[in-house]
């Protein structure tokens, strides 16, 4: 299996603050990588760098053997990289199905077809009952799932999740975790930034820990959880592993 995504010596600084400092890692085709770390560890920055939302100060990102450092978000999407937004960004004046249908349009030609795709995905993430509703009436949990739905509707190779569990009830988390875990089997590679550890720890076969913009640990959940450095980094934060 070749590396789908290759991140090498990636750095990004905002003024004096080095949010990401010489980070390198690679993700294989069909892998599910969990990205965790205490607040301000640089998770979201790495995430946005890959998604093309911000440009790195140095380092490079290779996707499918192609250097994509600092590409535009829509280029990312078109070449198969989907993302969600930590703070949901729905199209406020559109219905749920149209929100998703827009993503589906990346591959579908007609609106009708896109809406069909959208319906399937929406059912998948469990929003069937609000299919036609305006997004204005959705709860936080539902908005999070809408984000996931929009990402899935792009039918990407690489899908980036950003704290999709935040604000979800425990049962919601469970169903969502199942969904995410099932994605690799559907031929998608997943990079998943998450704060809700119990979810990611059980779903992700590989966990990478970031702290102060550097990679702290990288391995299977059990090892990572036992890693003293990680525990030290997380000290103070309540932590329920596995």
């Amino acid at each position, binding site marked *: 299996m070749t590396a789908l995504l290759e991140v090498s010596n990636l750095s990004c600084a905002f003024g004096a603050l080095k949010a990401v400092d010489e980070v390198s890692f690679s993700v294989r085709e069909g892998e599910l990588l969990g990205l965790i770390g205490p607040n301000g560890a640089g998770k979201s920055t790495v995430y946005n760098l890959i*998604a093309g*939302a911000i440009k790195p100060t140095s380092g490079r990102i290779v996707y499918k053997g192609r250097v994509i450092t600092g590409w*535009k*978000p*829509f280029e*990312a*999407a*078109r070449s198969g990289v*989907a*993302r969600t*937004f930590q703070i949901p*960004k*729905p*199209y*406020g*004046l*559109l*219905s749920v199905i*149209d929100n998703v*249908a*827009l*993503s589906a*349009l*990346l591959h579908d*030609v*007609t*609106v009708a077809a*896109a809406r069909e795709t959208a319906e399937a995905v929406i059912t998948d993430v469990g929003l069937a*009952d*609000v299919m*036609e*509703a*305006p997004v204005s*009436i959705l709860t936080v949990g539902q908005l999070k799932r809408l984000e996931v739905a*929009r990402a899935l509707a*792009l039918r990407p190779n690489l899908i980036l999740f950003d704290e999709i569990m935040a604000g979800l009830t425990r049962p919601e988390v469970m169903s969502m975790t199942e969904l995410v875990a099932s994605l690799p089997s559907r031929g998608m590679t997943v990079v998943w930034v998450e704060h809700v550890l119990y979810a990611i720890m059980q779903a992700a076969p590989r966990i990478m820990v970031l702290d102060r913009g550097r990679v702290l640990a990288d391995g299977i959940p059990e090892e990572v959880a036992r890693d003293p450095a990680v525990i030290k980094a997380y000290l103070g934060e309540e932590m329920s592993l596995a």
Partner: protein
Amino acid sequence: MPERGSISLFEVVLFGVCLTLVAVPVPHFYQDVMIVTFIWAGVALAWNIAGGYVGLISFGHAAFFAIGAYTSTILGVRYGVTPWIGIWIGALLAAALGTTLALIGARLRGPFFILSTLAAAEVVRIAALNWTSLTGGAEGIWIAPVPNAVNMVFASRTTYVAVMLGYVAAVYAIAKTLEGSRYGLRMFAVRDDEDAASAAGVNPLLVRAGAMTISAFLTAIGGSLFAQYFQYLDPTHVASPELSFQFALLPALGGLGTAIGPLLGSFIIMPVSELLRSYLGAVFQGLHLAIFGGFLIVVMLYFPDGLAGALKRLGLGRSKGPP
């Protein structure tokens, strides 16, 4: 109220009414009101494609209107090119300016974009005013009122009404089709959240430029038709900021983002303001405009989705989503 994309009974009836209005003999005054209403409605619809669908609020559409009007007229009067052709040339020129403005404004949002369009329109006005050799300057340029189908000058008022209705209908159809199409969906997405749209593979700049181009194109056609009906053009009239504002106000009052909004806006506001002027204008200097201003404030603050939205809320439309 009609749904996005699909044609509703309401629209069919509305169109029917307009057709009969054209068919049956009505006093000239009403025909003129209809002509102006139709042209303005068409331009309002065109404006809405940029302003309502993509959120590119423009206070410079008079520039496109003027370019259309002047191009077809100058070609016709000076070079004997029939307006039937001139219209399209004018529309293309305006479209080019539209694209340019969208690209110029690539980094501009909200008020900043508005002001850039306002400034661009002023440049056009002053140019038209001073480029006398081409536009006839302030004394304007006029079309000989000699009826002749080739010169698109008609003997009967009714013909004009019919042509203008054709224009509105066409623009409405285009707006409607856009609404239902994938391009429409992309426009709405860019308007509502550019980052999300971009993350969904939509190139926002392209969408903005496209919308502006179409909008300018259709506006210019309205300008040419107006010139043919009015048969006299001068910059202080067809390129004035006031006109730009009017083009923006009608959709805003009617309701942005759907085709029906601008249509209702024009069909209600234009006749009403004409009548207000007719009956109050002689009594109280300025009263009719003062009323209009106040009305605009109230609608914007308390019915931000315009008359169409207000009517919808009054239950005239199918309710969306679960109760």
